[in-house]
């Protein structure tokens, strides 16, 4: 199973700043291992962010996103204490959902 994400969420004024680190190989499908064999592509394809019960972001990603991806978002009108739920799904169907609470 995939490692947990690290999610940081903090209010700055009336805007929540959300940063997330994801543990994922993000294989492009172009890399060769040391035996010369091509390593099959394996990458996150979709990401959703829910804040306070509302879907605020949904995104799709490709192989150009760096290994162990980092994303940052800003959500206006969120409040300290709101729950942030982030989900990803990759091209092999692996997925991961983690949550955090917005800090003041």
């Amino acid at each position, binding site marked *: 199973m995939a490692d947990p994400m690290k999610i940081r969420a903090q209010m700055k004024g009336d805007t929540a700043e959300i*940063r997330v*680190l994801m543990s994922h190989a993000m294989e492009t499908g172009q890399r060769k291992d040391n035996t010369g064999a091509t390593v099959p592509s394996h990458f996150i394809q979709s990401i959703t962010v829910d804040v306070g019960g509302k879907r605020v972001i949904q995104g799709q990603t490709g192989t150009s996103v760096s290994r162990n991806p980092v994303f940052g978002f800003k959500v206006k009108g969120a409040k300290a204490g709101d729950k942030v739920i982030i989900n990803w799904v990759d091209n092999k169907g692996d997925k991961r959902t983690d949550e955090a609470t917005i800090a003041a």
Partner: protein
Amino acid sequence: MKQRLSTLLVAAMMSAAFAVHAQQPARKAAPPAKKDGITAEFEKFREVLEEDNPAELFEARGEDIWKNRKGPAGASMAQCDLGLGAGVVKGAYVQMPRYFADVAQVMDAERRIVHCMVKYLGYNEADIRKQPFSNVNKTPDHVSVITYVAAQSRNMKIAAPQKHPKEKEAYNIGKEIFAYRAGPYDFSCASCHGADGMRIRTQDLPNLRKPAEAIRAYQGWPGYRMTGGFMLTQQWRMNDCFRQQRFPEPSYLSDSITALLAYMTVTANGQVYKGPGIKR
């Protein structure tokens, strides 16, 4: 033959003569480069990179092993003494290398952590030595634990002890290894890290003889290596420097590497640790 003979002669007759000179700072470097565009540009984005460092993912993995893993006899890392008492992690990283009476040896953090993982969690040292460093396929458990332990000293002052004679010895020997030129390219550690303002390609080279720069090298590792996307440790950094120095390979967790790390860490004493790092 010619080389060997002259080496012997010189070695025999000159070692004494130059013992004092050798303490002096080394050769003048190329004119110390001012901060040029490339270095300045990299620094602008360092903060962004450091703010969200994927090293945290490995830190979390290491924390889990430290706190939850049990050895075959039911032991855990709670029994591991990193120098501040059994199970104490906070601040331990920046106070190694240090002398450990139980093994009558000076150990750097990596050496001590591996020692504990073998002793308490039942890891096989031979297996660890088979793949001591991370690669794109695998970050070994001990590397994650090192990352966790290092992170538990973040924002603390480096304070590698120099009380025990063996700790002083490690420092002094490390200092000599640092300056020792040999091999087909005539390189020593100091060839790249002995003067200010030097760069290989675009990579900044801290002058490890200065506290304010030694800290930069020290806190780079353990670090998240952007190339490949995995964690590498100080033991790896030393190993790969010797590779590029065109030396033979230093054994993993050997006295020579501990000595070098003692020299670098003691030089950085008093500086505040901001690692784990993120490196190109």
